[in-house]
C-alpha cells in the first residue's frame, strides 16, 4: 500500500531503532555462546533474540529494505525453532547468526550513509535454512506440570520453563479463571484490569482465552485462564483476581516428560508498548534546551552582579539574595535533569566490546576471556561517542599485541586463555575512570624506544609518551587487525586533547598492562574559577585545579632553563633565565607565567596567586594576578579546527557579554613542558 508514502522520512527512525535491536542481538548471541560453553540453556536470550529480529524484519519491511527482511527472516526462523526446542540452538548456529547480524548491520550502515543496499547474501541465507532442517529433529523433553493439556499446549517454551523453574524455586503456581460479563465490564473489571491487579501480587505467566458454552454466568461464551506464579498469600491473590480463594487451582510439577505438542511461542507479542518506558529524542533537541538553559545561567549571573552592585550602594538586598540563591539551586536542578537526559549507560556503550574481542581472537588464534564491569556508570552522549573509538583501540591492542599466543602463555606458566578486563567507575569531580587491563606480555620498552629512536624510557609515563607519539604505532606494528584504525596517538588526542581527560599506563613485563582513561562525564557546564591575569579575565575548571596558593615571584627559586613560551618570546623580556620554582610542601613546583605565555602586559606587582595543577602526578603552577571567584560556566568549545589552540578548551560568558577564555591549564602545562624539552634537545 503505497499511498504516496515517502519512506525516506522513516529511514532515520528505522536506522536508530535497528541499531538498538542489533546491539541487543549481538549481546544476546554472545551470552548464548558463553552459556553454551558451560552447557547452560538460554531460553530467555533465544526469545529476546527472536523478538529483536522479528522487530528488525517488521521495520525493514515497512521501509522496504528487502535484503534486511530476507536475512532477518532466515535468522528469525532458526530462532523460532530453537525457542520451541526450549532455547536449544543447533551447533554452529551462533556463528551463522552473528554473520547474519553483521550482514544486517552492514546494510543498515549503508542506509545511514545513503548508499545502495547490497542484496541479501544468498549463501548465508541458505546456510541458515539448512540449520533449521538439522534443528528440526532436536527437540528435548521437558518437565511438565499438572496444568490441563489444553492449557499446557498453549504455553510457549519460555513460559513453560518460567513456570517449571518458578515452582522448583518454591513459588506457588495458580490457575484461575476470569469470566467477563457486561456487569463486570461496566464496573471496570475487564481482563486488562484483572491482569494488572494480579500483576501487583504475582507474576502472570500466561493468559489463555477459552471458549465456553454461553450461559447466564458466561454470557459471552468466553473465559480467560490465567496462570500465575506468586509468593503472596492466597487471600491476596484471590482478591486481586476477583475470585473466591477456593477458585484458585494449584499447579504442581509432574515428572513425566511432556509430549511434544504443537505450541509455538506467541511470536506476535513483539511491540508491547508497556515495555517501552522510553522516548527517543534527537540530541539536537536536548542541545537546544541546554542552549536555552545557558542563557538562563548567564542571566542569573548578571542578576547576581546587579544584586552585588545594589548591596555595595547600601541597599538591603537580603530578600533578593534569598530568591537569587533559590533560583540558582533550581537552575542547577534543571541543568542536572537535562544533563541526565543526555547520559547514556557505559554498559550499553561497551556492548560491542565483546564482539570485537571475539572477532580478534578468531583472527589472531589467541583465546581471550573478556570481563566488562561498567556498573551503573553513565556518560554524556557526546563524550561517549568521542571516547568509544579510543576504548576499542585499547581493547584491540590488548588482544593483538599484549596477549601472547596460547603456547607461549603456557610456556610462561600462565593460563592459556588471556584475560582482558574493562572496568569503569565514576570518580569525584565529574570524571569517569575507565581501565583496560590485560595479563599479557607487557609493553616492550626497548622495542618502543628503538622504533621511536629515543633513549630507553625510565618510567611508565615516559614510555607512554613515546607510545603516543604520532605515527609510531602505525609505522611498525602493521598487523591484520591493529595496523589500521587509530593509533595510540589518536587515543591520547581523544582522551587528553579533545575531552580534557588523562591517559595513564602501568605495565609490567610478562605480567600485563593497564591503560587508564580519565574523562569528564560531560563537557558542557563546569564549575570554574575566574581570575585576572595581565588585565584579562580567564576561567579554569575547578576540577582541574589542585590548589590555589599565594606566591611571591621575587622569592621563587630559579631552576634550569626548561621553559619556552609558545611564541618563543620568553627571552625577550627578561633575558635568558630558567623556570621559576616555588616550594610547595617540600616539593619544588615549576611556575609558569600566564601573562607571558599569552603575551599580555604584566602589571608591576609581585604579589600573585598560583594555580596549581597536576598532570600525571607532576605539579605545575601558573602565576596569575588575582582570583575573582568561583561559578558555574557554560563552556562553548572552539569547534573551528583553525582556531583550536592547545590549552584553551573554549569560551564562556561571565555575564558581561564578552567571551572569556576557558583555560585547560593541564594541557597548556604539558605542551609548554614538551616544547621546552624538544627545544633543549634540538
Amino acid at each position, binding site marked *: *500500500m503505497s499511498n504516496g508514502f515517502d519512506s525516506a522520512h522513516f529511514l532515520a527512525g528505522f536506522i536508530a531503532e535497528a541499531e538498538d535491536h542489533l546491539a541487543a542481538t549481538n549481546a544476546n548471541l554472545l551470552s548464548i555462546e558463553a552459556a553454551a560453553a558451560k552447557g547452560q540453556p538460554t531460553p530467555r536470550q533465544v526469545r529476546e533474540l527472536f523478538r529483536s529480529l522479528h522487530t528488525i524484519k517488521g521495520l525493514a519491511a515497512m521501509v522496504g529494505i528487502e535484503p534486511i527482511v530476507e536475512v532477518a527472516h532466515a535468522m528469525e526462523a532458526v530462532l523460532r525453532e530453537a525457542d520451541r526446542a526450549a532455547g536449544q540452538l543447533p551447533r554452529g548456529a551462533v556463528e551463522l547468526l552473528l554473520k547474519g547480524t553483521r550482514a544486517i548491520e552492514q546494510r543498515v550502515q549503508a542506509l545511514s550513509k545513503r548508499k545502495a543496499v547490497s542484496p541479501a547474501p544468498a549463501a548465508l541465507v541458505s546456510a541458515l535454512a539448512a540449520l533449521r532442517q538439522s534443528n528440526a529433529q532436536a527437540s528435548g523433553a521437558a518437565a511438565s506440570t499438572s496444568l490441563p493439556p489444553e492449557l499446557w499446549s498453549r504455553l510457549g517454551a519460555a513460559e513453560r520453563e518460567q513456570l517449571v523453574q518458578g515452582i522448583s524455586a518454591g513459588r506457588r503456581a495458580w490457575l484461575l479463571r476470569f469470566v467477563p460479563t*457486561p456487569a463486570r465490564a461496566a464496573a471496570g473489571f475487564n*481482563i486488562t484490569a484483572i491482569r494488572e491487579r494480579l500483576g501487583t501480587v504475582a507474576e502472570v505467566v500466561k493468559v489463555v*482465552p477459552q471458549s465456553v458454552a454461553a450461559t447466564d454466568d458466561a454470557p459471552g*461464551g468466553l473465559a480467560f485462564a490465567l496462570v500465575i506464579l506468586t509468593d503472596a498469600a492466597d487471600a491476596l491473590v484471590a482478591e486481586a483476581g476477583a475470585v473466591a480463594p477456593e477458585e484458585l487451582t494449584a499447579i504442581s510439577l509432574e515428572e513425566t516428560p511432556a509430549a511434544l505438542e504443537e505450541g509455538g511461542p506467541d511470536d*506476535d507479542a513483539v511491540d508491547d508498548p508497556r515495555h517501552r518506558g522510553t522516548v527517543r529524542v534527537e540530541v539536537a533537541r536536548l542541545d537546544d534546551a541546554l542552549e536555552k538553559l545557558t542563557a538562563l545561567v548567564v542571566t542569573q549571573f548578571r542578576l547576581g552582579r546587579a544584586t552585588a552592585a545594589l548591596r555595595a550602594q547600601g541597599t538591603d538586598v537580603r530578600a533578593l539574595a534569598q530568591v537569587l540563591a533559590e533560583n540558582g539551586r533550581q537552575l542547577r536542578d534543571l541543568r542536572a535533569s537535562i544533563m541526565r537526559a543526555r547520559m547514556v549507560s557505559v554498559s550499553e556503550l561497551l556492548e560491542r566490546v565483546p564482539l570485537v574481542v571475539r572477532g580478534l581472537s578468531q583472527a589472531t588464534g589467541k583465546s581471550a576471556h573478556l570481563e566488562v564491569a561498567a556498573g551503573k556508570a553513565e556518560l554524556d552522549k557526546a563524550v561517549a561517542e568521542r571516547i568509544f573509538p579510543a576504548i576499542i583501540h585499547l581493547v584491540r591492542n590488548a588482544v593483538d599485541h599484549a596477549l601472547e599466543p596460547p603456547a607461549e602463555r603456557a610456556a610462561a606458566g600462565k593460563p592459556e586463555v588471556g584475560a582482558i578486563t574493562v572496568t569503569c567507575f565514576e570518580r569525584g569531580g565529574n570524571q569517569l575512570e575507565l581501565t583496560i587491563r590485560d595479563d599479557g606480555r607487557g609493553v616492550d620498552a626497548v622495542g618502543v624506544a628503538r622504533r621511536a629512536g629515543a633513549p630507553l624510557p625510565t618510567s611508565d609515563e615516559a614510555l607512554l609518551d613515546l607510545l603516543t607519539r604520532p605515527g609510531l604505532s602505525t609505522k611498525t606494528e602493521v598487523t591484520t587487525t591493529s595496523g589500521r584504525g587509530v593509533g595510540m596517538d589518536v587515543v591520547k588526542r581523544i582522551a587528553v586533547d579533545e575531552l580534557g581527560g588523562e591517559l595513564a599506563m602501568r605495565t609490567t613485563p610478562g605480567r600485563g598492562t593497564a591503560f587508564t582513561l580519565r574523562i569528564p562525564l560531560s563537557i558542557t557546564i563546569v564549575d570554574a574559577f575566574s581570575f585576572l591575569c595581565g588585565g584579562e579575565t580567564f576561567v579554569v575548571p575547578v576540577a582541574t585545579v589542585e590548589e590555589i596558593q599565594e606566591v611571591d615571584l621575587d622569592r621563587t627559586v630559579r631552576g634550569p632553563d626548561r621553559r619556552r613560551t609558545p611564541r618563543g618570546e620568553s627571552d625577550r623580556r627578561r633575558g635568558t633565565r630558567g623556570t621559576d620554582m616555588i616550594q610547595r610542601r617540600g616539593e619544588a613546583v615549576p611556575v609558569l607565567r600566564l601573562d607571558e605565555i599569552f603575551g599580555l602586559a604584566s602589571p608591576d606587582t609581585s604579589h600573585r596567586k598560583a594555580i596549581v595543577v597536576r598532570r600525571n602526578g607532576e605539579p605545575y603552577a601558573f602565576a596569575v594576578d588575582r582570583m575573582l571567584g568561583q561559578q558555574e560556566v557554560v563552556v562553548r568549545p572552539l569547534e573551528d579546527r583553525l582556531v583550536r589552540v592547545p590549552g584553551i578548551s573554549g569560551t564562556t560568558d561571565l555575564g558581561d557579554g564578552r567571551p572569556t577564555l576557558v583555560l585547560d591549564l593541564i594541557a597548556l602545562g604539558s605542551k609548554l613542558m614538551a616544547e621546552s624539552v624538544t627545544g633543549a634537545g634540538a
Partner: protein
Amino acid sequence: MIIACLRPQTGWVFTQAASGLEALERLSLKRFDVVVLDLNMPDIGGYEVIEFIRGQDKLRELPILVVTTRGDESSRTRALAAGATRFMTKPFAPEALLGEVRALVADGRPEAPP
C-alpha cells in the same frame, strides 16, 4: 489511536481494546460490525486472536481487517489463512482505511451506514 480519530467523520461507534485479550473480551460482550486488528499486540498475538474469533460460532462471519507494519508475504498469507478478511500494510492514508472498513461493513450488512 489513528482509527479512533476518524470517528467524527464517519459517525461510527468505535470501541478500543488495549490488547488482544481485551479485544476478545469486548467482542464476546457486544456485537460489532468489523474488527480492525494489529498483529503486534501485548499479550497474545494477532494470529491467535483471529483464530480464536473464527473458532467462536457467533463471530465466524465477523469481518476482520488486519492492519500491520509487516508487509512481507508470509505475514499476509498467515493472517489470511488464520481467517483475516482483509490485510493492509502500515503506513496508509486514513481514506484508504476508511474505504476498506466501509467496504467490509457493506459486505456484511445490506444497508451500510452513511
